[in-house]
């Protein structure tokens, strides 16, 4: 009776959840592009964080000491990044989650228009930071 309730039922519901839940957990490690970093990899680099989200999104919270740099205000905000950047600096751009394209767009512009190098994207974006840290 007890093993049925405490082992079989949770396992059964767990399997059902895997099959039916729209937000079930992921079994395999996501394949990252060479320029994508997990939150742990990014933190080890002690990078300059660049927040590619909108001002509204940023007001709800951001990575401490991150620099705002979104497409709409790129030219005005770029100076904030260049003030902190020096040769050898690593830049990690983030937006809301894996589903947003803002960090890709900003990364492309930093590489192609500004000529920076070692510009990465934070895999999972702001969501992964929020999960990582309570700050």
């Amino acid at each position, binding site marked *: 009776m*007890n093993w049925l309730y*405490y082992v079989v039922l949770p396992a059964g519901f767990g399997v059902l*959840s895997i099959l039916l839940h729209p*937000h079930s*957990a992921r*079994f395999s490690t996501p394949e990252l592009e060479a320029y994508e970093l997990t939150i742990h990899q990014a933190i080890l680099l002690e990078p300059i964080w660049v927040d590619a989200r909108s001002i509204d999104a940023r007001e709800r919270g951001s990575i401490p000491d991150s620099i705002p740099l979104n497409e709409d205000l790129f030219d005005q905000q770029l100076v904030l990044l260049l003030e902190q950047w020096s040769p050898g600096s690593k830049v990690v751009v983030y937006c809301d989650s894996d589903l947003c394209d803002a960090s890709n767009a900003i990364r492309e512009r930093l590489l192609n228009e500004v000529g920076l190098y070692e510009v990465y994207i934070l895999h*999972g974006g702001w969501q*992964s930071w929020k999960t990582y840290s*309570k700050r």
Partner: protein
Amino acid sequence: MTFRILCRTLLGGFFMLSGVLKILSPDEFQMALLNYPLMNYQTSFLVAQILPFIELFCGLGIWFKRLEIWGLIQITGLLLLFIVMLSWTWALGLDINCGCLGEIDPIKGQPGLIARDIVLIGLAVYLLKTSRFRIISATTK
């Protein structure tokens, strides 16, 4: 008797709430788990999908006489495991989201979370002791 009901409500309620919140978003719980040492995607996948249901069934089970003892034993074991994992991350200096109750968790930081788990173990042990006492007294009559 009233104190037992209070303990059971607190302990069972906590585990049911914890289970349900995790069941609603296993992907978020998995992201929290990945911050812990020894966790990779495969391990965290299993834990994220199964543990919430174990918590839910434990929280429910302690309300039923026939299931109570094993539910309390499992809850105590789980809480001890949580304390070990939290202490480990604390010792490593990791500032992590514990994944316990998600964003609604009012307690932040390992010391507070460990203290809460110790209080919950206290409740479980009390319920276990009084349950055993009742079983022994029932069989000796």
